[in-house]
């Protein structure tokens, strides 16, 4: 890709101001620190915004609860009961009710930060930066170990997971390393990576089709210019798809968290 531009159309030069950064690279996900503070990035501000919005939303929804709920109260109750009954009770069982508040918080935080990826002005999700999913996955990691050890004791918990019952003993040569990797490495690793990669790839796709439209519009070949419209139509379609993925990944995250908790709490693996 050469840096020379062909005939620059007026719209493109107004909208893009300069050469679009093409192709989009990983640098998009490492924004500079604001006000000269290296850690105060766009992502940090968005996380604070998400926390503030959630606190205000749930406080406002429950400040004056009514028997016939208002619209805001209905939304808050729907989110909470979806997580408590639809996820926790469904996957963990009757014991899962106590995880309802944590799962509802986790779900709303991830859903909101994921939806930032399509909000104009914010345009990128903090979860597209690997640090945020890692922290969320670490909380789950600590949580299921804590409950497993609390319920069964360290020795029994490890024995239960690493040496599953009712297996012919030579199988342990294969099974134990696999279970060990699953328990200690794969679960938190895939949990963090799933959320990260979905948001990362989603943002990358939107960048490719939006910026790609400008690149096509600025192309030397005349017949390539109209193709930019197809590229932008694709960007709009992918934005809708991205909304679906944002909510789905929040659901999958709490679902897997409660599934791991269930395997820690259950009697036999």
């Amino acid at each position, binding site marked *: 890709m050469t840096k020379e531009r062909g005939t620059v159309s007026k719209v493109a030069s107004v909208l893009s101001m300069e050469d679009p950064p093409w192709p989009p690279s990983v640098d998009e996900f490492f924004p500079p620190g604001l006000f000269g503070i290296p850690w105060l990035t766009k992502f940090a501000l968005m996380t604070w915004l998400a926390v503030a919005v959630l606190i205000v939303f749930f406080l406002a929804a429950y400040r004056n609860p009514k028997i016939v709920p208002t619209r805001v109260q209905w939304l808050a109750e729907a989110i909470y009961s979806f997580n408590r009954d639809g996820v926790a009770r*469904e996957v963990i069982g009757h014991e899962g009710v106590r995880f309802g508040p944590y799962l509802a918080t986790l779900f709303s935080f991830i859903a909101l930060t994921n939806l930032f990826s399509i909000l104009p002005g914010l345009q990128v999700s903090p979860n597209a930066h690997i640090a945020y999913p890692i922290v969320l996955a670490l909380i789950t990691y600590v949580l299921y170990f804590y409950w497993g050890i609390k319920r069964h004791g360290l020795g029994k918990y490890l024995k239960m997971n690493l040496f599953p019952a009712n297996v012919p003993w030579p199988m342990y040569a294969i099974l134990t390393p696999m279970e060990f990797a699953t328990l200690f490495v794969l679960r938190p690793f895939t949990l963090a*990576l*799933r959320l*990260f*990669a979905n948001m*990362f790839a989603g943002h990358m796709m939107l960048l490719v089709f939006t910026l790609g439209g400008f690149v096509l519009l600025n192309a030397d070949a005349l017949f390539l210019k109209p193709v930019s419209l197809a590229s932008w139509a694709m960007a709009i379609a992918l934005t809708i798809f991205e909304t679906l993925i944002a909510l789905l990944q929040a659901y999958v995250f709490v*679902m*897997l968290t409660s*599934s791991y908790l269930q395997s820690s709490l259950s009697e036999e693996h």
Partner: protein
Amino acid sequence: MYGSLAAIGYGLAAIGPGIGVGLVFASYIQSTARQPETAGLNRPNLFLGFAVIEVLALLAIAFGFIWQGTNPAQ
């Protein structure tokens, strides 16, 4: 011509999860068509299966960016 083999690698890596996710959803649709009342019962399993398979394709995305290699011409 200069490009990244990671793109081809990702295409190859997406075949397996693509088939897998297709099978998961096909089975779910089939089971709910036969017994509509099991739709809610099976939905957690649907998304658990989907999430576990989907991560294979996502690993490929991440690793493609991690091991990008360098352009020998530069």
